[in-house]
């Protein structure tokens, strides 16, 4: 996010703090689509995403006084939006989570792949088939622990700049990259499994710890 946008945000923040309705309305106009899209990534349902968007702006309205103006507004507000979405997600039955570790590529001791690596990329050349795969990819993202899900949604789906994501999630760039790559490897593997027999990956005996890296 560039300096002009940050300055425009700050002007609106000060307006809201001063009780100007028009500043709040402009802020809604400016951010509602991005907040909705972020919430949709967590909730994957239009009604829930809409309600989480309302919650996020309600929190913005009430808590703007706590926003530290030396920080970037967008990162504060995206955290508010993610919290609003996760708060709604917790009210729903939770999805079974899978171990990322079980879906990482397997290698032999000499560093070669332990199984064949089929090229299924032709499957996305057909528009309808690609949409179907995208729907599945959305379900696979939802299986990820939030630390991974947020990163892959914000970067690969929302196409936010990596520095903005790291700042929003309050993580380092190396941690951002590590999470993004592992999330992509997971989704790639899950998509691969749709294309044919499951590769001869050995399920690990003990579930690996999903430490946010």
């Amino acid at each position, binding site marked *: 996010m560039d300096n002009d946008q940050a300055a425009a945000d700050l002007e609106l923040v000060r307006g809201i703090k001063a009780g100007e309705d028009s500043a709040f309305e402009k802020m809604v106009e400016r951010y509602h689509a991005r907040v909705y899209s972020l919430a949709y990534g967590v909730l994957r349902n239009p009604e829930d995403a809409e309600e989480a968007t*309302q919650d996020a702006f309600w929190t913005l309205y009430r808590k703007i006084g706590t926003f530290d103006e030396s920080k970037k507004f967008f990162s504060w507000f995206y955290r508010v939006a993610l919290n609003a979405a996760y708060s709604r997600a917790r009210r729903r039955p939770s999805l079974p989570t899978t171990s990322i570790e079980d879906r990482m590529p397997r290698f032999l001791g000499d560093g070669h*792949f332990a199984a064949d*690596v089929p090229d299924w990329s032709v499957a996305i050349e057909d528009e309808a088939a*690609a949409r179907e795969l995208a729907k599945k990819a959305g379900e696979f993202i939802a299986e990820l622990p939030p630390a991974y899900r947020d990163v892959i949604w914000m970067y690969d789906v929302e196409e936010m700049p990596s520095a903005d994501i790291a700042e929003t999630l309050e993580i380092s760039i190396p941690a951002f990259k590590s999470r993004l*790559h592992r999330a992509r490897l997971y989704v790639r593997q899950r*998509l691969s499994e749709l294309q044919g027999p499951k590769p001869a990956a050995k399920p690990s005996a003990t579930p690996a710890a999903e430490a946010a890296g």
Partner: protein
Amino acid sequence: MSHDEKTCQELVLDCLLDFEEGTMPEADRVELQRHFEMCPPCLNFLTTYRATGRTLKMLKPREIPPALAETVIVFVRKRCKKEGG
């Protein structure tokens, strides 16, 4: 693959992201490119890693509810009144 070059494992686990994002020194990028040219499994992995990325780009919700901004403003006004804000 000679021993001073990266293994498939190192390439996939440690280098693929930087290769794809263009955040890798040129010499390393050239070395990896050579590996991909000579190693069909890694090339297939790269191709499907890219296909995964293209698939994910299709997930962005295309339709923002048309009156969402207005709905949000009305919602916040009502909550304000209700809570005496």
